[in-house]
């Protein structure tokens, strides 16, 4: 039996995580995460490298299988052993740091392929929706281009269009701009900002603090496999409670200073 068809309860969050643990062998990467993202909310996750941000995101759509705890997305329990995970993943869009576009398909093909093979949309519908989404990310003129012919920023926007074309209820972003040249970051963040304004539920791992401050409703700081603290975006960025958060922010906001001090990473 699958529960993916269940309507979300009135007070159900878009993403509800409780008691989440994840170990790789003896390495416990997530050590008990309780976390919730409401529908329409934009939450940024920040934290040092290796703190488990990617693992957290990947547990939400089961690219990693949690060791313990439950994850519910849009009312469906992802961690239920009986769940149809492919059906759940259709409702969760994911954008990767390294884009992961399909190199053998054009931009249009990238955005259409899963619609056709997974949602069983006809060729015409799939391509129409693909075009609409490519237009939405500002790439109407790149429909026929292969990924190798696109800049990093364009590739990442195709990846966003690809996820959007499936009509997801939640979007996960794992450092979507970290692999981009600085001058290309703005285009991608602009698309994400537009999505947020349109009311998409977004969970974003990022080091772009200005994006977090201006776009996110909430910021969560992770370290050592736990969420150390979370709160309203502007306050978290300017005046966090914890010393570790403050230290991390000072490094991210002023990398040069951190390097002089010999700070890691």
């Amino acid at each position, binding site marked *: 039996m699958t529960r993916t068809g269940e309507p979300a309860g009135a007070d159900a969050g878009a993403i509800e995580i409780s008691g989440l643990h994840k170990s790789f062998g003896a390495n416990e990467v997530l050590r008990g995460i309780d976390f919730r993202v409401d529908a329409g909310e934009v939450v940024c996750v920040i934290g040092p490298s290796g703190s488990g941000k990617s693992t957290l995101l990947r547990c939400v*759509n089961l*690219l990693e299988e949690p060791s313990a705890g439950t994850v519910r997305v849009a009312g469906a329990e992802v961690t239920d052993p009986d769940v149809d995970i*492919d*059906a759940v*993943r*259709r409702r*969760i*869009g*994911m954008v*990767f740091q*390294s884009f*992961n*576009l*399909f*190199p*053998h398909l054009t931009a249009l093909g990238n955005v259409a*392929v*899963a619609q056709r*093979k*997974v*949602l069983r949309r006809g060729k015409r519908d799939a391509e129409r929706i693909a075009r609409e989404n490519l237009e939405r990310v500002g790439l109407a003129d790149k429909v026929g281009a292969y990924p*190798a012919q696109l800049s990093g920023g364009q590739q990442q926007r195709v*990846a966003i269009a*690809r*996820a959007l074309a*499936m009509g997801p209820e939640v979007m996960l972003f794992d450092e979507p701009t970290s692999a981009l040249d600085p001058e290309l970051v703005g285009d991608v963040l602009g698309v994400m900002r537009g999505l947020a304004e349109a009311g998409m539920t977004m969970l974003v791992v990022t080091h772009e603090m200005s994006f977090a401050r201006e776009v996110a409703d909430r910021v969560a700081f992770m370290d050592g496999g736990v969420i150390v603290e979370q709160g309203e975006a502007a306050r978290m960025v300017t005046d966090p409670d914890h010393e570790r958060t403050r230290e991390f922010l000072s490094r991210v906001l002023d990398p040069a200073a951190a390097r002089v001090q010999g700070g890691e990473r």
Partner: protein
Amino acid sequence: MTVEPVDAAASRGPARGLFAGMPRRRRRRLSLGAQYTLFAAAVVVVALLADWPTLRENFAKQEVAEQLFPDIITVGLRNTAVYTAVGFGLGLAGGLVVALMRLSTAAPYRWLATAYIEVFRGLPLLLIFIFVAVGVPLAFPGTEIPGGAVGQAGLALGLAATAYIAETIRAGIEAVPRGQVEAARSLGMSQGRAMWTIILPQAFRIVIPPLTNQVVLLCKDSSLVLFLGITLEQRELTKFGRDLAGQKGNTTPIIVAGICYLIITIPLSLLARRLEARQRRGQR
């Protein structure tokens, strides 16, 4: 900026042998010149000593060569192509299945695939031919491999090619970045769907050059049909060449058969090398 070989310093060092004391460039040119002269001298000596009329009589006799045509093409070359194509087709289909089994999460499939690959890579192809031609009819009296000689040769070649092609395809699949499966799965594709729609098309692009080389190998290996009992119409290049060499008491048919092989294999090898080079350039 000049790029010097690693041993440049050494060769510029203390005086050495014949060319001692000369600038390095000049010394290298002289040494190369000496080598060419020696090579040319060897060629001239062989050409003078060789008994050209006899050689020509044995290896390139025009009347014999003329009698080979058109049969060596319409029968020999054609059958070589047919055996190769059937063997490659079976090997490709089998290789894909075995490669997928080899990468399966189900351990018994993996063991089976590994066992198959090791066994068939470890056996002489001739033994496989004899097994198909002699062993199968002995073991199962009355059964016949469909397709006659084409079926037998194709099966023997295909059984062996399956093992090699399986390893090639597995390497190709593993060369596709992990992120590709993850992206496909995150869009809701099942494991099988992701493999078929996203991974295999990329993997096949990667393995086209090695597969082209596999065709060259199969083309040559199809000569083992020699050891099957086949009719005149089923002879491929090698058997054709051998039979006619025996009949005419002359080596020319073997030489012509050899040239026919090269007409297939050299362009294919060149093609494979070019595809490989293009792939290497295409990688960014």
